[in-house]
Every structure is written in C-alpha cells, then in structure tokens.
C-alpha cells in the first residue's frame, strides 16, 4: 500500500512538471510570442526589444521555465499579458464555481450511478433495459447539446430554472442550488450511465461468486447479501472509476460553463484560448492537473481501504 502511494506521488509530481514544461516548450515553438501579443499589430522594433527583455524572453527557454517554476511553487503563476491580471488570483476567483460544479456532479454521478446499477443488477428486466438505454444516451449525446436542450425545456419553455449564470453559495444557498441544477445534470448524465453499467457488471459478478451461495445457504438475508456483501465487493472496481470520471467532468466543465455562461475555470480556459493568453491557460492546466492527481491519490487510498488484499501489501 505504502509503495503504491509512493508510486502515485512520484508519478503525480512528475506529471505536473511535465505538463507545465510541455506548455512552456510549446510556447517557444509557437509562431509569435507574448511580447508581440501585448504590443498588438503596430509597434516599433525598439519597443519590442525592450518588452522582450523585460519579460525575460531573451533568456534560454529552460531558464525561463525555471523562473516560472520557482514562482509557481510559491503560488505565483505569473501575470496574464492580455488582461494584466495575476493568473493565480484569476484562478482563485473562479475556482468556487468550477468546484461547485464538479463536486456536485461527482456526487450525483456516484450516487445516481451506483443506485441505478444495483437496482438493475438485482431487479434486471425493465430497470436493466432502462439503464441500458440511459447509458446509450449518456454515452452518445454531446454534453453541450444536452445542456442546450435542457435550457430549451426548463428555462425557455417552462421557466422553471435559470438558463444561465451562477449564484455564489454565500450570496444565496437556494439560488446557488437552483443555478447548479441544469449544469450539474448535464455534466453528470454521461457519468451516471457509465457508473450504472459498471456497477451492474460488478454486482452481477459479485453475486455469482461462491461466497454468495455459501452466505445464502447459511441464512444471511438477501438484503445483507446485496447491500453488505455484493456491493462492498463491487465497490472495489467501481471506485477506480471516480478518478476517470473526474478527468472527464473537468473536461466537461469547459463546455458546460460555456453553455450556461458560468464564470468558472472552464470558461476562463476558453476565453484565454481565444485570446491566445497562454500564461493564463497554462495556469488553468496546471491547476486541473493538480486536482486530478490529488483525486487519483484519494481514489488509490480508498481502493486500498476497500480491498484487504491491497492493504496488506
């Protein structure tokens, strides 16, 4: 277990370095540079030279990376040349929006998916087929299209929920919840389908094992067999899905925040991309990667906690 965690930690640190370095190298390889972006279309060569020097662009690229890295470790991700705002501050401002979205969507995914999966494993028949259909829909429909359709249904046709925008939790908890219903549903739907399918398969696998027969034979009631024994065993493969789901949820926020005009990190990334604000998007990538590796670590710990064979190692 300790070795597994150590391995994960090493990989995680290496990944964060690799991602940030790769974005830096990409910048160097790209046509145009930050100085030119800042100066716009008309500028004098002297002004360009001066700015180029001020920004440290004269230095070799690896030295530039080193400067960025030493500051990044202290929480300073640089300044956006486009908006002039500090990258870390911008990210901190927008983080609560994306965090609300992703955390709620993860919970909805796990709870909804596992419940549906257990139900369809135990009941089969009509529920099973419904889960199949749902998982096909969740798999095939683009999240942004689904989002727009839901806006049409719930905000335009019947004015039930706000179509766009975000209300901070501190301002109004009810408004916060209402503003999250549609985006979280859109985000969670594909994941719910995936979880339901995997949970069902894992439950069916667990329920077909020898120990289930032995427990039934010795008088353990069906409720305990399903919820205590089979579900606990099935949770071992299912919990590894949480990490993968989170990666796709983070990707999903890019689209969903755009549709619902939510001022989160996904929206920031899109805006930075269209403005060629590489500093800013680099910061977003690093933060997203940090979130993913942290969650992967937690998932590994949970996996070990659930699976005695791993824990013992």
């Amino acid at each position: 277990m300790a070795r597994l965690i150590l391995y994960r930690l090493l990989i995680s640190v290496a990944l964060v370095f690799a991602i940030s370095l790769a974005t830096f190298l990409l910048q160097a390889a790209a046509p145009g540079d930050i100085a030119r972006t800042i100066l716009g279309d008309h500028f004098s060569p002297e002004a360009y030279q001066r700015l180029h020097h001020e920004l440290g662009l004269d230095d070799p690229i690896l030295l530039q990376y080193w400067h960025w890295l030493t500051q990044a470790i202290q929480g300073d991700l640089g300044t956006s040349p486009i908006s002039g705002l500090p990258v870390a501050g911008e990210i901190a401002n927008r983080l609560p929006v994306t965090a609300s979205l992703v955390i709620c969507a993860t919970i909805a995914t796990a709870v909804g998916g596992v419940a549906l999966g257990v139900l369809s494993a135990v009941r089969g028949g009509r529920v099973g087929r419904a889960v199949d259909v749902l998982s096909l829909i969740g798999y095939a429909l683009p999240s942004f299209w689904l989002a727009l359709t839901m806006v049409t249904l719930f905000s335009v046709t019947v004015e039930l929920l706000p179509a766009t925008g975000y209300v901070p939790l501190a301002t109004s908890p009810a408004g916060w919840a209402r503003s999250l219903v549609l985006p979280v549903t859109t985000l969670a739907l594909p994941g719910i389908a995936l979880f339901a399918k995997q949970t069902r398969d894992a439950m069916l696998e667990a329920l077909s094992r020898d120990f289930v027969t032995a427990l039934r034979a010795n008088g353990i009631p069906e409720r305990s067999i399903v919820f205590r024994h089979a579900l606990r065993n099935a949770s071992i493969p299912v919990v590894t899905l949480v990490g993968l789901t989170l990666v796709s949820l983070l990707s999903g926020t890019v689209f969903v925040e755009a549709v619902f005009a939510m001022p989160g990190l996904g929206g920031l990334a899109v805006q930075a991309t269209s403005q060629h604000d590489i500093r800013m998007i680099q910061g977003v990538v690093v933060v997203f990667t940090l979130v993913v590796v942290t969650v992967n670590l937690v998932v590994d710990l949970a996996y070990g906690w659930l699976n005695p064979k791993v824990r013992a190692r």
Partner: protein
Amino acid sequence: MSRKLAAAPLGYLIVLVLACVLAPVLAPYSPNATDLDNVLSGPTVQHPLGTDGLGRDVLTRLMYGGQVSLVNAAIVVLTVLLAGVTSGIAAGFLDGWLDKAFNWVVDMMLAIPVIVTLLVVLAVFGGNQTVAMISLGILISPGLARVTRGTTFAVRQELYIAAARVSGLPNRHIVVRHVLPRVAGPVIVQLSVLAGGALLIDAGLSYLGFGAQPPDPTWGTMIAEASAVIDRQPWLLIPPGVVLGLAILAFGMLGDYVRDVTAERTERVPARPPRRPRRRISTAAPTTALLSIQDVSIALAGTTVAENLCLEIDTGQTVGLVGESGCGKTITGRAILDLLPAGGTVTRGSMVFNGTDLTTTDLRAVRGSEIAMISQDPVAALDPVFTVAQQVGELVRRHHGGSRREVRARVLDLLRDVDLDEKVAARYPHQLSGGMAQRVGIAMALAGEPRLLIADEPTTALDVTVQAEVLRLLRRLQADRGMAILLITHDWAIVAEMCQRAYVMYAGHIVESAPVRDLVDRPLHPYTAGLLGARPTRDRRGRRLAAIPGVVPRPSAWPSGCHFAERCALATPECADPVPVFEPEPAHQTRCVNHVLLSEGGGHERTSAECA
C-alpha cells in the same frame, strides 16, 4: 448483439460518410446560400430539415459540415492507431526499467485533463485543426498502447514463441504473424469507441469557436448557431444533435459488436432475485426421517438434470452421495436449500424436512438454522472483504442476536470448536490456508446450530493431511451435536470412513443405495462396481487401475433406458427400456436389470417402481 443489429450502425455510418463526401453532388443547395424569405422555416418541402437564421438549408449544411468532422475524426483515429499500437508493441518487447518507464508514462498520461490541454495547443497554434487533432490523438493513445503492450507481452511469453526466439525468429515475424492478429480485435473496439469520442470533442471545440470559421458549417457551429435562436426556433438543435449523437452511438455499437465477436465468451450469470415462497402443492408422504426426498426431479433452464431422486437421512446420521463429476450431486445438494442457479427448479416430488415440505415453504427460516452448507472451494466460499470475525459474527447475530460482546464471545467459541486460534478472527480470507478456510466455513455453518449439514466435497480442494483433520473435526462435531450430514463426494475412502449409508448417483439417477459396508462389499450396480474398481487401493497394487470407459453423458443426451448402458459391460437389449428399482437385499436398492449377475447370493427380490 446479433449480426443483423450490427448492420444498422454500419449502414448508418456508410450513408453518413457517402452523404458528406458526395455533398457537392447530392446537396440541394449551396452551403452558404441564404434564402431570406425562408428564415428559421422549420421542416418544409423545399427545406426538409428547415433553414437557419440566415435562411440557409440545414440539410445541406449538415452534409458539408460532416466533411470537416469526419476528416478530423479520421486524423484522431489514425494518430491513435500509429502512436498507440507502435508504442504498445515496442513496449511489449522491452524489459526491465524501460518497460517500467513505459508504464509510468501511461499512468501519467491517463491523468492529463485532455480538453484543457487541447486548448493550450489551440491557443499556441492559433486554432490549427490538424495540429489539435493530432495532439488529441496522442493524448488519448495510452489506453490503446497499454492494451497492445499487454497482448504483445503475453504472446512473447508463450512457450512456442520463446522457443522460436531462442532459435533466432526475428521480432518482425513475431509481430506480423502472432501479435497483430491477436491485437486486431481489441484495437478495433477501442478505435471505434475513440472515433465516436473524437467526433464529440471535435463538435465541442467547433461549438466553442475553435473549429472551422464562419460561414463554413460544422456540426458544432450549427449547434452554436441554433443556441442563439433557441427561443425562436428550438427545432434547429435537433438535426445536428441527432446526426452527431447517432454517429457516436453507431461507433459505440460497432465497437460492442466487435468485442462480442472477438472476446472470449464469458458466461454472465444473472443475479437471482430473492425467491418468493413457491406455489407448489406438496406431494409429501408422512415420514420419520429427518430429511426425506421423494421422487424429486430437477431442471436447469428447461433441461432435466436429475430425476426420480429418493433419499433419506435420519437424525444424526451421515449419508454419502457418491458419483463422478457431472452426475448431479451438487445440484441435488443445492436443490434442498433452494439454491439452484438461475433457471433451476424442482419440477417434481417432495423434500420433507422435519415434517415440512421444503419445496413448498419459504426457506429463509430453514437456511442456516435447520440446514446449513459448506462448500467445495473453502477460500472462495468466504467473502474476501470481511474478516473471519465479521463473517462468523454476522451469522451469529442473524441466528442468535445479542450484544456486541455476546456475539464476539460466541464467535470465539465457534472458532475454538473448529480448532482455530483466536488470532484467526482478525484475518481476511486471503490470509487463510485452505484447511483454515474450511474450518471457518464449518464454524459459519455451525453458527445457527443446524440439524443437517450439507457438505459438498468439503475436502477435495485440501491437502491429504488436512483432509484427514477436517474429516475428524466433522465427525467430532457430529457426535457432539447430533447433527446429520449429507456428504457429497467422489472419494470412496471418505464414504467408507464417514458414512453409514451411501447413495450412488449417475447421470441424474440414483442408481444404487445401501449401507456403506454392503455397498462396498457387494455392489449391485455395474456403475458402483466400476467406481469401486476405479478406486486405487493398496491390495490391488501392481494391477492396472480399472477405469470406466467413456464419459458421463450430458443431460440433453440421456438415453431413454438405463443412463449407464452405453458404458456398461453387462448391457443387454433390455437396458434400452426404462429401468425400475429393485431391492434384492433389505435396504439395498439398485436400478439395474442385470444386478443378479453381480450378486452371488441373489436373495429375495422386490420391485418398487418409484425409489432406489
């Protein structure tokens, strides 16, 4: 998925590709031709899928827009194929730290947030589609690389390949002849799914405005344009969404189909819903035995797997059920507790336990507290995620209840009863030896103080010395508790040591039953005689081990007469007719027409058409 069903997604994709490729020929309008008289028209005769905010024909724009999407998806798929398969094969030939490094890289790449990273590429390269799609392909290739590496590695490990490598078979040959054919299936499955994912991401990026620039159509920009007029003409969302969704669905279904065709078939046993009390009318006759099985037939998924079973167990008695694998012994044991696999039912007869017919009652009150069971594979019979104390404790709580402390004390008592140390309580099943696991299994079975224990091959999976200990334990527990045992086994030594009476089962029939001594000394069925001959014993040392020629017929291939006739040296034409049960000696029954040939003395004879 059937072949017919797989034709639908394939057909859809072919039509889609043709429609997009042939758009310049087929499309009714030019993609950017505006018709300002028919803005946001909805479906009409001139515009079957309607027009957008500028009066442009939606069908035409869908066809032209698909060109971009399909080309982009193709770039992604090709990149994944090249990057994933080549790196996977290369890694499969690596050893040592290079192989480890490959795994590190794959683990790292699986944690990259793909879309945001893709946005970096788009920001740097100013929205260059091709670069973005190639990057996407590389970012999502590690999954395929891992699959390919696994297969390559497995092929390399196979003995004949290893041997061929020693004698100088070039790696190129191994890859082309052995690895590629084997990875083709999984690769196609993954690529098919990834193609759908690529379409999705491509549409998403162009929805965000990072794809082809207006006025040129893409599916993503069409959705974006539709969203701008969502309150005036929501219909516009439907065509691009449905076309795109169906394409992704089609790729996914094709992938599923290829997986079904290529993957090794693993039978998926559906979970059995909890049974409601069975609505049969009891046919039971009064009996003094603890368990009396009368004329029971069992069917699995409509096929009869055991018929006319008659078996009696008295209180405190040990009864053996003997036969080769596949004769129906385990099914019979399971049927008693209504634990047949899905689709299994008792179709006839009665099983009276202690005055109630088990085939007509709810067994929840019986399992564990009246009849319990221990299984063949002791480790697999324990739940791997709970400790011994938790598992035994749950049964103690179920059958006796009590406070936490009382339960704990009882658990330790039970463990002591089966000669296990207190320390075992805290262990998980994977930390137990087979013998210890079986003792835990016995402790769990004893938790409800049952009057009958069904022991299904309880020692088959154990070492010989451990076998003896477990059998001794069972005998002692039986003597202490006055518990009856139905011992299912194929081992005559165990029958002789443990049982008072034994039933010999062959192909779903009980062919002979008698007190064990009589059965071993004077078998009256050729199958029993054959089984006893097939048993290695010391006094026959030097002689060839006798074996019964042939195999047990499958239930669907049972003959109408004696099930054993095909393998029987004594078979006569009469054996083709249904065989009644004879009782040539008191309490000794046989289902053989020619049993006289086996008995020296003969004795009085009685025919009973029902039970052996």
